[in-house]
């Protein structure tokens, strides 16, 4: 077992062995979700705080359910209804929650590095659920899990990531995880959103859609991150869709066993058409199921990484 960490802040700092440990552990937790009793006592009595300062459907619900199925108590912190509105800082918010003896903080924030900051300031464990455009570690782990489960391996596979790479934390985490595990990563999208500088991360960059999908074993589609773009990066959604949207005609030119992935939320009719999203080559909903198993594994592992936790009675 190679996991000794108390936090999961990014994929960049993980070794390939650590990533594989998460995937192997997640496989066992996926089995738990398929039983009649979907609960294990591993985190019984622990308090997990979902500190989401950016909106989320999948990730937050997934982490909440993961903690509950490990028998932990969960607090969902809603910034809209909180004293954030009164100007309370992130650090003070977290410390106040820690004063309630919270054990694990799951943090999503619009600023890159927010989870890393909290890891320095808190005694509790911190799990990064997305920090700005920097990283989204559990998404990359569940993507890797899905690929490994369906294809039997990751090393040597051709994985194409399509869309808004520049503003995507999912893309960055995926690139780290996939290259560490030996996949060949191709990035494709409008030149304004897929600059060549990404070649320095060990990927191939192309702006030619046909070339990007021709040999792909996995096609991972990303949404246009409107909320993060500061200027207009392309003329309009219709032009994006006509050049880079995945539809039936283009799907027919991919390998017959190539799988379609998407971290969600999908914009039907923009990066992916309805037929493809719901078709049999799409593993989009499996990603969601796998996400729950991966997050259970992550919580289980970081809890163990806290080291001996003695309770002293005065």
């Amino acid at each position, binding site marked *: 077992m190679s996991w000794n960490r108390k936090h999961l802040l990014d994929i960049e700092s993980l070794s390939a062995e650590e990533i594989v440990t998460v995937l192997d*552990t997640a496989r*066992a937790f996926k089995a738990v979700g398929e*039983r009649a009793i979907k609960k*294990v*006592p591993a985190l019984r009595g622990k308090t997990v705080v979902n500190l989401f300062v950016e909106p989320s459907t999948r990730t937050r619900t997934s982490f909440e359910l993961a903690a509950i199925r490990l028998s932990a108590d969960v607090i969902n912190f809603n910034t809209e209804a909180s004293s954030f509105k009164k100007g309370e800082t992130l650090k003070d918010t977290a410390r106040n929650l820690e004063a309630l003896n919270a054990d694990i903080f799951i943090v999503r924030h619009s600023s890159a590095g927010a989870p890393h900051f909290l890891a320095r300031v808190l005694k509790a464990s911190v799990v990064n659920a997305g920090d700005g455009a920097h990283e989204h570690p559990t998404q990359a782990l569940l993507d890797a899990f899905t690929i490994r489960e369906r294809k039997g391996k990751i090393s040597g596979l051709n994985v194409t990531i399509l869309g808004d790479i520049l503003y995507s934390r999912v893309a960055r985490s995926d690139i780290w995880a996939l290259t560490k595990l030996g996949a060949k990563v191709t990035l494709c999208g409008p030149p304004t959103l897929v600059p060549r500088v990404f070649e320095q991360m060990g990927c191939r960059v192309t702006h030619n859609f046909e070339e990007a999908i021709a040999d792909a074993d996995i096609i991972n589609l990303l949404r246009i991150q409107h909320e993060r773009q500061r200027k207009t990066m392309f003329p309009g959604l219709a032009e994006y869709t006509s050049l880079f949207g995945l539809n039936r005609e283009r799907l027919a030119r991919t390998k017959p066993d190539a799988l379609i992935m998407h971290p969600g939320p999908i914009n039907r009719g923009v990066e992916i058409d309805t037929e493809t999203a719901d078709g049999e080559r799409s593993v989009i909903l499996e990603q969601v199921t796998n996400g729950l198993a991966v997050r259970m594994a992550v919580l289980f592992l970081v*809890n*163990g*990484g*806290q080291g001996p936790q003695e309770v002293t009675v005065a």
Partner: protein
Amino acid sequence: MSEGNVILNAAAIQRALMRVAHEIAECDVASTEVVLVGIPRGGVPLAQRLSTILTGIWGHAVPTGSVDVGMHRDDLNHRAAPNILPTVIPFDINAKTVVLVDDVLFSGRTVRAAMDSLNDFGRPERIQLAVLIDRGHRELPIRADFVGKNVPTAITEKIRVRLGEPGGEDEVVLEKK
């Protein structure tokens, strides 16, 4: 290759398992109600071997599975997270006689965790415990129903059970510190 004393060689292991299987058959007369569940890792190959012998005695297959204890351990707050091995119980355990199988019985905490884990799969009529080695030093009120060999040990000693390792002999070794 082994350091320490070999207390059971391959032939002795097989004789002990034959006797344990016959004890199970003598005790559990309603053979169709018996299922075997091995505790990974050591208990799994043992459960397989017992299953084979019992199939020969009873003339019918014996459902055999495995139950991992990693998520039910009582020391998760005191150590790094353990490796989780597969739990595979592809049969109903309700109202069955479940024979839990492990290689070494020591503090008894693994068996307690195994029973906790099994609890979520159904309500057996009874649970029995079969072990290859009982080395003493129980920390919980747990005992084995079927024992291959009792080996009194000092707390600092270690018992290593090697079964079915590629290129290796089956053996049980007592290592002194």
